[in-house]
């Protein structure tokens, strides 16, 4: 493994940038993600930073049921994220539609129909520790030796 790759691995393991998008959730999962930022869970101690800018992000947290307004926009947003990137579905909504997925509703879950989803965190909402665990266990898998794997 080249020295450059080793440096990249080291840096990436301590600097994971997360952005989150709400494609029609009830706001419960959003609040749980915010709770990760608070001192009790303190996501930044693991080197995870939360942004609202997809162009800076490595990980996209998707929350919500996929309302019609998001059909085209989520793909655009996903394309803006530079490689290496990965999307995590947070909460029941992007996985199954949860309580909103009923007859005569307009929602269009699962989100994996629209963008590739690497991991799912079920729960309504999931605990902040579950979100944290998902990010922490996924990040090394995706980001370590990324350039080597791409060769």
């Amino acid at each position: 493994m080249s020295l450059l790759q080793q440096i990249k691995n080291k840096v990436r393991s301590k600097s994971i940038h997360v952005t989150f998008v709400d494609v029609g959730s009830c706001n419960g999962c959003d609040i749980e993600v915010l709770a990760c930022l608070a001192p009790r869970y303190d996501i930044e101690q693991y080197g995870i930073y939360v942004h609202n800018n997809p162009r800076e992000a490595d990980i996209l947290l998707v929350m919500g049921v996929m309302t019609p307004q998001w059909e085209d926009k989520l793909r655009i947003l996903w394309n803006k994220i530079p490689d290496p990137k990965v999307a995590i579905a947070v909460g029941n909504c992007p996985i199954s539609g949860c309580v909103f997925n009923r007859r005569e509703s307009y929602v269009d879950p699962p989100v994996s129909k629209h963008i590739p989803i690497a991991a799912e965190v079920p729960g309504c909402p999931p605990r902040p520790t579950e979100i944290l665990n998902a990010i922490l266990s996924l990040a090394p898998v995706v980001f370590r030796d990324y350039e080597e794997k791409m060769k």
Partner: protein
Amino acid sequence: MNLSVIWYLREFLSFEWVHKFLFVKTAPLTTPPYFRDYPLLTGKECTHCLACMMICPVPGGIEVLMTREDACHLPVTQSRPPGSDTWNPVIYPGHCIRCGLCVEVCPEGVLMSGRVIEFQFIDNTAFTSTFQLEVDHTLCMRCGNCSIACPVNKEVDPALGGGAPPSSMESVMLVTGGELKILNEDKCTGCKTCETACPNMAIRVVRQVEGIHQEDEEE
């Protein structure tokens, strides 16, 4: 003034403080035992009454299936020989919202989750449910599918499914006099079979669940 500067330097230049500032982590986060997580099996026998399925507020959260216990990701217990086929509630993470209602409503105590049962016992609470049937008569085409599919009707009037004319007025609903009539709403068990069987989405089952506080028996 001078004193406070020295105090600050002493405090914040000490090795201990700098080390903490750079390397401290919060304690590893664990799920507390009282967290109301996805329900687990207690090992008591499920009687297939389906009360848990009927109260579940989300589509596809729980199903009662004839499974081996070890097939439904829940612990195998001693009371039944492991690997035998029995009725078991199966919970689907990704659908289940961990509300604990199924745990609370199960008459046999098959499921457990956090302190739900404990608190139900302390507070002496229970659920009552009634069901209301609503027919949109502009959509209903009087096909009678619902009254044939209804499991309650099947018990009351078994010949109905064979195309015989209705022989009893004890059914939940019947097509009589050119209209679908709801006769005995109180007999409905809320299975929603009629809703599924209706080709025109004309019949809806409205579930009204009420939490009740039972009076203490000695009072």
